């Protein structure tokens, strides 16, 4: 091999090309990654569900406050609302609300426990317990809400 020796081209080119940071691969586009539970564990499921139900409950809070504004407008407006609110379809949404409260609340209790150093090696068992308790309570609530007629 023979290359004519001139000014030293050096390694500047190599180094400067590496100064830029390469693209960062992500498992999913932005916040979708929070809810991507494919090939993930129970903890990720709990986190995803917690986030989903949390956002859902905030949405419900404002919906609830908006609906209650009908109370400002007196009895008639309220009775109109009650007419819709006591339909089967609407009551199913109430069951969904209870589900959200139970999922978020019980998992929140679990997070408060492990976040303060309690039962950290049993986080999965804790979550399973939450699921069992939550399911029982949800069934009870659903029977009560839907079984009124």
């Amino acid at each position, binding site marked *: 091999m023979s290359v004519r020796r001139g000014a030293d081209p050096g390694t500047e080119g190599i180094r400067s090309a590496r100064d830029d940071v390469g693209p960062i691969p992500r498992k999913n586009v932005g916040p979708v990654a929070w809810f991507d539970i494919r090939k993930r564990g129970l903890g990720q499921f709990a986190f995803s569900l917690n*986030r989903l139900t949390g956002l859902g409950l905030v949405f419900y809070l404002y919906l609830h406050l908006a609906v209650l504004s009908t109370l400002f407008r007196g009895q008639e407006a309220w009775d109109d609302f009650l007419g819709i609110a006591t339909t089967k379809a609407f009551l199913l949404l109430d069951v969904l609300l209870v589900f959200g409260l139970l999922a978020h609340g019980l998992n*929140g209790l679990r997070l408060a426990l492990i976040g303060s150093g309690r039962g950290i090696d049993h986080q999965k068992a804790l979550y399973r317990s939450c699921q069992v308790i939550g399911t029982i309570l949800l069934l009870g609530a659903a029977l009560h809400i839907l079984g*009124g007629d």
Partner: protein
Amino acid sequence: MAARTTDATTSAPAGRSRTWVWTAGTGVALLALVTIHMVAHHFVVERMGGLRTYEDVLDYVANPVMFVIECVFLVVVTIHSMLGLRSVLFDFGLSDRAKRLTDRGLIALGVLTVAYGFLLIGVLASRA
């Protein structure tokens, strides 16, 4: 010891453990408050679905114990919600400036929410 060289140490909003403690604390309080709220509204009422009539609602908020509980519930649920939203928004990896703006925005939203709620409860209680 130096921490990492990014903006970690210079991060402006001093949240740290306080936000976690508040989220957990309000969360535990909500377990009780939501239970009371739900039971009082849905499970002690005989009617299907447990929803109250207009008069029932007015009587309910006029009860001083319920009035206080509902007010506390409103404040606690708003704090918990705002902290939850903050945690979600901060997970986008916001800049320090965006974090400060987010904090201010959420405080404003929270204050508005509580003010609206108090107004609602107050007006209804006065109608009873």
